[in-house]
């Protein structure tokens, strides 16, 4: 997910704030581990991060989208 974060022009801290605002409960370190691929997110955390990134892409007027968890499974 790291390349999405970079493309969204968000610092790790900004992404964590967006994730937290949407209802995420993990610490900044735990979120960083997920984003950098060092830990596997559950469905909720994956979707909250995807949503935070996708909302940011919309703000920037980009077409890029992070797939949601159920879209990954399909």
């Amino acid at each position, binding site marked *: 997910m790291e390349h999405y974060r970079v493309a969204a022009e968000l610092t790790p801290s900004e992404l964590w704030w967006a994730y937290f*605002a*949407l*209802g995420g409960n993990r610490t900044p370190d735990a979120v960083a581990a997920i984003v950098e691929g060092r830990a596997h997110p559950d469905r909720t955390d994956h979707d909250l991060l995807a*949503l935070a990134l*996708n909302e940011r892409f919309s703000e920037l007027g980009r077409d890029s989208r992070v797939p949601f968890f159920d879209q990954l499974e399909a």
Partner: protein
Amino acid sequence: MSDLEPFEPGTTLPELAETLSTLAGVVLGEETLDAVLEMIVSLSVSSIPDVHGASVSLARHGEVVTASATSEIVRELDAVQYEAGHGPCIDAIRTGERQHEVGAGLLEHWPTFGAAAIEDGVASMLSTPLAVRGRSVGALNLYATTTDAFDGRTAEMATIFADHAAVVLSNAAAYAETETTNENLMAALATRQVIGQAIGIIMQRDGCGSAAAFDVLRDASQHANVKLRDVAAELVRAADPELRDERPTRGQNRP
């Protein structure tokens, strides 16, 4: 701040250092920052013999400005440096190294600034960089009327003042970060609350669990290309009779 005694000439270094440490500890906000910088420049003038003017320059948003000065002449001499793009304070900030020049050396080293300074009676100048977290963010500028004003002990005193001004700046920066964190937290908690309320409404309405309710919000948000927070807020507003019916005069007619 007001209960601090002004310094008399001849104050010892340990006394100065102790009071400056106290100063550094009380900094909380922008107003206090200005007051402390003002105190540092006036202390520099009252405690260092032959210094007739002092200022603190700060690099802010790509330009150097005078944050505090003991007189209008000092402020003008600082401005000459900013306009010319050279001068001891500019060089101190850029190189992170102390700049000291006396007499004709001022003119040779910094022609435009040197000419203006000598005309105003400046015989020597010392600019000490202010380092915050290893970065040079400003300078303490001391203007003197004699050529030997910054020898030995006085240069040491200038360094003490500059170090404390840097601590003050560092504290102010930390305070600004805390303020930002508080603002982020308030905004995030408000968003979490409205999303939580919306999830509750959908769970009740659709008889589903919280994960499924979140998916409903998520899909509505993505399809309409509206932020999830705004979708949630609209849902809460529509479901809340007080908000729905009385939005313009909300809260005014409550018992």
